[in-house]
C-alpha cells in the first residue's frame, strides 16, 4: 500500500546538539487511514517531529514525503494546503475574532482572495462555511459558545476550538499535540467520539498524548520516541509488553500493568 507519510533519515540539530534522528536519522511511515499514537518521555522530541512535519522547522538532513509530494523544505502554509493539519501543544487562537470566525477562518476559502473582496462574491461561501462551522461546533460540544469572544473560553474549550478549526479544512492527515491536556472528562469523551468519527471517514490521525487511557482505546498503532530516536513501533499490545518502552516511558512493570484493559 502507498504510504501517506514517509519520513526518511530525518535529523534536526539545535545549536550543534542533535535533537532528532540520532546517528542514522529518524525514519517512519504512516499508512493512509491509520490512527497512530506518538508517545515518549517529555523532551524526547515529539513536538519537534510535529514541527518538522508541518514545516515550522526544516530538517538538517533527510526527507519528508507527504501524499506523494516532497514537503521537506516547503513552508507551513503550503504543507497545510496539501492537507496536513496540526494543532499546537498550547492552544493558539485568534483573539480578535469571535469563536465562530476562529473556525471559519480555518477553511481554504476562495473568498479570501484579494480580488473577491470587492465583488462580494464571497458571500455565498460564507453562508456555507457558517453552516459547516455550526455543525462542527455541535460535534465538539461548543455549540453554546458560538458567538462568544475567544478570551471567554476555558483552556479545554480553546483546545477543542483548535481542533474544530482544523476539522473545517477536511485534512488528509491531522497531527494533534496533546489534545486532552486540560480538557475535562466530558469534553474528552466528545473529543474521542469526534476523532473516531473523522477517522472512520478516512482521515489519518497522529496524536501525541500522555493520557494513555485515552490514547490506547483509540489508536491502532504506536510510535515510541526516546531522545529523538524511534524506540519501538507496533500495536498497543506489542508496545505494552516491550521491556524497553516499559522502562523508558511507562515507568516500570507495575505501571505498565495498569494500562491493560
Amino acid at each position: 500500500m502507498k504510504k501517506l507519510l514517509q519520513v526518511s533519515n530525518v535529523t534536526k540539530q539545535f545549536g550543534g546538539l542533535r535533537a532528532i534522528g540520532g546517528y542514522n536519522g529518524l525514519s517512519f511511515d504512516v499508512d493512509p487511514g491509520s490512527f497512530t499514537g506518538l508517545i515518549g518521555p517529555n523532551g524526547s522530541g515529539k513536538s519537534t517531529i510535529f514541527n518538522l512535519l508541518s514545516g515550522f522547522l526544516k530538517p538538517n538532513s533527510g526527507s519528508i514525503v507527504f501524499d506523494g509530494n516532497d514537503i521537506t523544505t516547503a513552508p507551513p502554509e503550503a504543507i497545510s494546503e496539501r492537507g496536513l493539519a496540526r494543532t499546537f501543544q498550547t492552544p493558539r487562537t485568534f483573539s480578535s475574532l469571535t469563536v465562530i470566525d476562529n473556525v471559519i477562518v480555518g477553511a481554504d476559502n476562495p473568498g479570501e482572495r484579494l480580488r473577491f473582496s470587492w465583488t462580494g462574491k464571497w458571500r455565498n461561501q460564507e453562508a456555507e462555511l457558517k453552516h459547516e462551522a455550526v455543525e462542527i461546533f455541535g460535534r465538539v460540544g461548543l455549540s453554546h459558545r458560538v458567538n462568544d469572544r475567544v478570551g471567554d473560553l476555558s483552556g479545554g474549550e480553546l483546545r477543542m476550538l483548535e481542533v474544530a478549526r482544523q476539522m473545517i479544512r477536511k485534512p488528509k492527515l491531522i497531527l494533534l499535540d496533546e489534545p486532552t491536556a486540560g480538557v475535562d472528562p466530558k469534553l474528552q469523551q466528545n473529543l474521542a467520539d469526534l476523532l473516531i468519527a473523522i477517522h472512520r471517514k478516512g482521515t489519518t490521525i497522529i496524536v501525541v498524548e500522555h493520557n494513555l487511557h485515552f490514547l490506547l482505546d483509540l489508536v491502532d498503532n504506536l510510535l515510541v520516541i526516546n531522545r529523538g530516536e524511534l524506540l519501538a513501533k507496533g500495536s498497543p499490545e506489542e508496545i505494552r509488553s516491550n521491556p524497553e518502552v516499559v522502562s523508558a516511558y511507562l515507568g516500570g512493570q507495575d505501571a505498565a500493568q495498569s494500562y491493560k484493559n
Partner: protein
Amino acid sequence: MNWLQVILTVVTIGSIFSVVTLALNLQYARGGMINFGVVAYFAAGAYIYAIFTHPAPEGLDQYIIGLDWPWWAGFIAAGIASLLFAVLTGWPTLRLRGEYLAVTTFAFAEVLYSFLLNERRIGNGAVGLSNIERPIRDWGTIDEKYIFAIVAVALMFLTAWIFRKLLNSPYGRALDAIRDDEGAAQAIGKSAKRMRLQVFLLSAIPIGFAGALYAMYMTLVSPRLFTAEVSFIVWIALVLGGERTIWGAMAGTFGLILLEEVITSLPFESVSAAQNAAAMNHVVTGLLFIAVLRWQPFEWISKKLEKK
C-alpha cells in the same frame, strides 16, 4: 480671523492626511506592520507629481527632469511611484517584526528625505519646486478652493470605502488571523508573507495620490514639507482616533489638524505672541493626547457610528 477659510483648510488638509491615516490604519491596526516612515510614500507621490507636471528646467533651476505632462498623468504616476517605493522598501523588510520594521521604515524615510535635500537634480534640493501645476480652475461659479476641498474629501471617502470593503471581507478576517498569531495562521494555510506584502503595497497607492493632491494644494514640494514630523502627526492621529476603526482614523486626523489650523490662524499682535502660541500648540497637543488616551472619545464615537 476668517472662519470659512480655516474650515476649508481643515477640511482639505484633514482629508489629505486622513487618507494617509487610513492607509496606516490598514497597515498597522489590521496588518500588524509598524511603518514609521509613512511620510516617504507621501513624499514620493508629491515629488513624482511635481516632476511629471513641471516644465523643463531653465535659468537657475538645478533639477534636470521636468516632463510638463498634464496633471492627470502626474496624478496617476504619483500613485504608481508610491507603489513602486513600497515594493522597493517592502520586499526586503516585511519579514521583520514589530520594532525592527519600525526602525527600518523610519530609516528609509530619512534616506529619502536627505536624498531630496542634497540631490539638487531631483527637485532643486532645499529650495524645492514651486508653482506646481494646479489643475482645478474655478468651475463656473464655484471657487477653486471649494473644488479642492471636495476632491480631497472624495479621495478620503473613496479610500475609506475601498479599505472597508476589503477589511469586512474574508480577506480582512484572514489578515486579522495573521496579525493575532502568525504561526497558527500558517497552520491553516494562510501565507503571512504574501498577504502582508499585498496590504503594504495596496495601502501605498492612496498615500501617493494624497501626496500629489498635497503638492497641488501647496503648489510647492520641498524636503521640509516631508520631515519625520508628518509620520508622527499621522501616527498620533491614529492613536487619538483609536485603532481598527475607519471613522476613528478620520476623526483623529481632523481633530489634530483642526487644533493646528485654529492656532496658526489666530491673529497675533507680535512675533513673541506667535512664538508663544506655537509653543502652546505643542503643550495643548500633548495635553489633548493624554486626555484622549485616558477617555478615548473618538473611539467611542466611531464605534457608535459603525454600529449604525
